């Protein structure tokens, strides 16, 4: 009577393990290296199993697991996350100078992942949740425990930063270096 029936690990695995790839993918893009991402995902599953009695069957298990992951991630942020932050003033300048740079014609997987790594974590996590994991704004707000308006503004800024970083990566390969001159020439 007092105990939740069928607290079997098989039931938990059936509900939670299908989301392993999604969790690992996000963890991999937010943590320093693969081993840290693996540790994080392991911790998420152990914590989820321990608190599985609180999970209501029929609700979104994937969103629940992501919520646990980001809770842990934020808890250990200093240890886990690459804290490469762009200074507000500097980023403002870059926004003005590099407003809406062209997206390269050919985008290699490595380039865009490299560009994503350069985006500050608070914007990167929202871009990941919205554009890769395809969570709705409300789900993201619940997962990260931030207001809906913050989700919208950070996503907009995150996408812009990603675009700028991708352009920077492309320029480092010598792609698109002529564009600013052309534009100057046009305006002149």
């Amino acid at each position, binding site marked *: 009577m007092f105990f*939740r029936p069928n607290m079997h690990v098989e039931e938990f695995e059936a509900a939670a393990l299908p989301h*392993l790839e999604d969790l690992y993918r996000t963890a991999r893009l937010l943590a320093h290296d693969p081993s840290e991402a693996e540790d994080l995902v392991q911790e998420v599953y152990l914590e989820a199993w321990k608190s599985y009695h609180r999970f209501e069957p029929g609700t979104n298990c994937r969103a629940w697991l992501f919520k646990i992951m980001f809770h842990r991630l934020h808890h250990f942020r200093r240890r886990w996350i690459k804290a490469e932050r762009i200074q507000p003033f500097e980023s403002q300048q870059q926004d003005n100078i590099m407003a809406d740079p062209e997206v390269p014609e050919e*985008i290699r997987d*490595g380039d865009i*992942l490299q560009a994503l790594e350069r985006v500050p974590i608070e914007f990167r996590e929202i871009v990941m949740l919205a554009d890769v994991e395809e969570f709705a704004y409300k789900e993201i707000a619940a997962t990260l425990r931030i207001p809906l308006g913050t989700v*919208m503004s950070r*996503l*907009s800024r995150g996408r812009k930063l*990603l675009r700028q970083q991708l352009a920077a990566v492309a320029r480092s390969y010598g792609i698109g270096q002529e564009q600013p001159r052309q534009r100057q020439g046009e305006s002149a």
Partner: protein
Amino acid sequence: MNVMRFDTQQCERIRRQLDAYLSNELLVETTSDVLRHLEGCEACSRELESRTKLRDALRKAAPSQLPPERLRQTIHQNLRKTQPGFWAKLETRNWVLAVAMVTVVLCAAVLGQRWYHLQQRRRLVANILSLGVSDHLHCAIQGHHYPDVANPPEQLRKKLGPEYAGLLGVVQQKLPDFQVLEAHICSVPGSPRKYIHFITRGRGTILSVILTKRGGVSLPGGRLLLAGVSGGVPLYHARLSGMEVVGFQYKDYLGFAVSDLGRNEMLQVAEGLAPALETGLSAGSESEDLGITIFRPRALQWRESSGA
């Protein structure tokens, strides 16, 4: 596409909504506005195309981060090593029930303990009141050591001695319906305790008023144990051996009123007697040795000697 001219402000407004449009988070009406604008604005369409391309590229690149197979195995093993604890298995709603049950059990335990202590103290009161009842039964009822016609007061005062002679008047005054037949100092076989015993008759029965030194005996305190309070003197009641007894306690003495009258009648009697006897006792000087001959009923003396 019909290319139309839009002002810069309109394009800026639409571009601010492109992120939400891309995430399919716009309201239907707003989506229609954006679509209408995009149909006629080549620049904004190119911008949307760029943003879509970037998102699709990211979506395509991210799945390359596949978990190693050993991670799945490690998680599988770890889950089997770790079982949810006892408390985790409890249903949340049952926590409330469990806490309520524990509270009820604790309350029952506390109340039970209090009831047990109360019963213990009641037994102690009954044991102390039985001192008065035993003297009344042995001396007055079974021994019948009182005359049919009351002894003269002078003789009774002499029997009581100078310390307690004054109490005779108190008893006579406070029990107007009763006649004091006998007053003496007596004891009960097997006990060194001495009793100042007034045997009275009235209302068709015999009533004893008895005083004895406390000798370390103390009636326990507690509102629930009291039958009443008169003039600041707490009164205790019990029914023992077919007799109603009301007891009261002074600084150095215990007092009893014992008879087979009803409870309320006895309490009325005791209410009048208890404060008056206390005053009477404090008027006389106490002495360890009463200095007079102890009255010992013949029947009891015989029992003592035959027992020996």
